[in-house]
C-alpha cells in the first residue's frame, strides 16, 4: 500500500496540475489578504471558496486522475498487489497531494499575515481541516463514478453533475422544501438534510465558528443542542468520516469485480 501510495503521490507531484492548484491557492490567499487587509473578512470569503471549490477540484482531479492513470493501474494489476491496495493507494495519494496543496497554498499567505498571533487561528484551522475532508470525500465520490463509467466523457459529466447537485441543487431543493412546508416543525428535517450533504455539513461546521450568533440565536433549540455541543461536533466529523468510508467501501467492492 505504502509503495503504491508513494508512486501515486510521486506521479502527482510531478504533474503540472498539482502545482497549478497549489499556486492557485497561494495567489488566492495573498490576493484575498491584500484586498481585504483584514483576516476576518478574508476568512469569510475563503469559506465560500473552500466549501464550493475544494469539492469541485476534488471531483475534477479524481475523475481525471483515474482516467489518466489507467496505464499505471493496468501495469500494477499484473503485479502481485491486491486490487484494493492499488485503488486505495491511488485515492490516498491523490487526496493527500490535493490537501497538501490546499494547506500549503493557503497556509503560507496567512502565516505571512500573522495568523499565528491572531484570535482566528482556530477558525482558520477548522477551515483548512474541513477543506481537507471535502477533498477526500469528493475524490472518493469521483473515483466511484469513474470506476463505474468506462467512457471518459460520461464519467466526467456525471462527476460534475454530482458536484453541482451537492453544491447547489441540493440547497435549492432544501430551501424550497423549507418554504413550502413552513407550517410544520422543520428543525429535525433541516438538521437531517444538513447532515446528509457533506457540503452543507462542512458549511455549518465553519459557520459555527464565524456566524455563531445568528445561527444560535434564531433557529430552534435543535441546532443549538446539536451543533453547539461537543457531541454535535464529534457527530458531524463522524458523518464526514462516513462520507469518506462508504465511497471507499464501494470503490473496493467495485474494483474487485471490474475487468481490466
Amino acid at each position, binding site marked *: 500500500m505504502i509503495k503504491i501510495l508513494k508512486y501515486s503521490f510521486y506521479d502527482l507531484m510531478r504533474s503540472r496540475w498539482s502545482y497549478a492548484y497549489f499556486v492557485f491557492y497561494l495567489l488566492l490567499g495573498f490576493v484575498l489578504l491584500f484586498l481585504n487587509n483584514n483576516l476576518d473578512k478574508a476568512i469569510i470569503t475563503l469559506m465560500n471558496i473552500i466549501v464550493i471549490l475544494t469539492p469541485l477540484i476534488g471531483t475534477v482531479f479524481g475523475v481525471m486522475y483515474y482516467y489518466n492513470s489507467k*496505464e499505471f493501474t493496468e501495469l500494477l494489476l499484473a*503485479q502481485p498487489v491486491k486490487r484494493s491496495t492499488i485503488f486505495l493507494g491511488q485515492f490516498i495519494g491523490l487526496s493527500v497531494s490535493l490537501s497538501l496543496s490546499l494547506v500549503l497554498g493557503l497556509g503560507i499567505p496567512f502565516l505571512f499575515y500573522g495568523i499565528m498571533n491572531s484570535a482566528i487561528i482556530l477558525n482558520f484551522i477548522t477551515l483548512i481541516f474541513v477543506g481537507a475532508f471535502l477533498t477526500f470525500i469528493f475524490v472518493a465520490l469521483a473515483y466511484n463514478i469513474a470506476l463505474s463509467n468506462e467512457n471518459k466523457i460520461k464519467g466526467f459529466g456525471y462527476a460534475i453533475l454530482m458536484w453541482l447537485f451537492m453544491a447547489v441543487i441540493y440547497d435549492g431543493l432544501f430551501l424550497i422544501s423549507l418554504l413550502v412546508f413552513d407550517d410544520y416543525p422543520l428543525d429535525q428535517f433541516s438538521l437531517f438534510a444538513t447532515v446528509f450533504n457533506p457540503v452543507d455539513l462542512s458549511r455549518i461546521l465553519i459557520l459555527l465558528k464565524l456566524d455563531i450568533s445568528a445561527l444560535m440565536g434564531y433557529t430552534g433549540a435543535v441546532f443549538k443542542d446539536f451543533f453547539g455541543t461537543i457531541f454535535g461536533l464529534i457527530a458531524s466529523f463522524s458523518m464526514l468520516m462516513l462520507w469518506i468510508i462508504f465511497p471507499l467501501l464501494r470503490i473496493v467492492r467495485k474494483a474487485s469485480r471490474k*475487468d481490466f
Partner: protein
Amino acid sequence: MIQIKDLHKTFGKVPVLKELNLTIKDSGIFAILGPNGSGKTTLIKSILGMVVPDKGEILIDGKSTKGQWEHRQKINYLPQIANFPSNLSVIEVIEMIKNIRNSKTRDGDLVELFKLQPFLNKKLANLSGGTRQKVNIILTFMFDDPILILDEPTTGLDPLSLIHLKSLIKEAKEKGKTILITSHIMQFVEEISDEIVFLLDGKIYFKGSVKLLKETYNEQDLEHAIAALLNVQYD
C-alpha cells in the same frame, strides 16, 4: 501447472469464453492461437486475475486464484499494448516494478542486450512503439518466476531484437518455466512452441503439438493448417 475449469465470461451480452477447460502442464511453450476476438487475451487476463470470470475456476499449482493476488508473484506478464504511465522515465518504471515485486532481477543485462541505455532517462511517452516494446520485454524477463505470459511479444520489434526475444524465450524454457504465448505470426509460433491451443469463439478447438496439427489437416506449414482448421469450422 495451470488448470482452467469451466471458465465462462461474458462482456455485456457477448460471451467471450464459454465453459472453457484447459490444463497446462509445467514447463514448455504453449501458444494460444485464434482469430481476433476469440478470447485469447481474456483467457490470459483471467489467469492473471485482471478479468474476473463469471463462472469457473483457475488453479495454479493446485490453488484457486479467485480473489487472490499472491499467484501473480509467480507470473511475469507481457501485456499486448505497452502502456506505461507517460510521465515516468524508463529507469523509473523499471525501478518501480522491481520495488513492487521485490525479487531478484537482471535488468542490467537486459538493458544492455536491447541497447536501451540511451533511453533510460527518457519519458515513456516520448519513446517509439518498438522501444516501448523492448521496455515491456525487459520488465517481463528481468524476473525469474516460474510462469511467463506473453501477449503478442513480437509487436513492433526489429529483427535483431526478435532474435534476442527468441533466445530469451528458449532460455526460459530450458530453465523449465511454463510459457504462454499469443501471437499472430505463425512462423514465430511454429518455430518456438511445443504445444498449440486453438481458441475460437471462446472454445478450444484444438490442443496438441504443432506436428499433430499439421498432420491432422495434412498441411506443410502451420499457417495453412490453421487456415484449414478455420475452414472446417466455418463450413
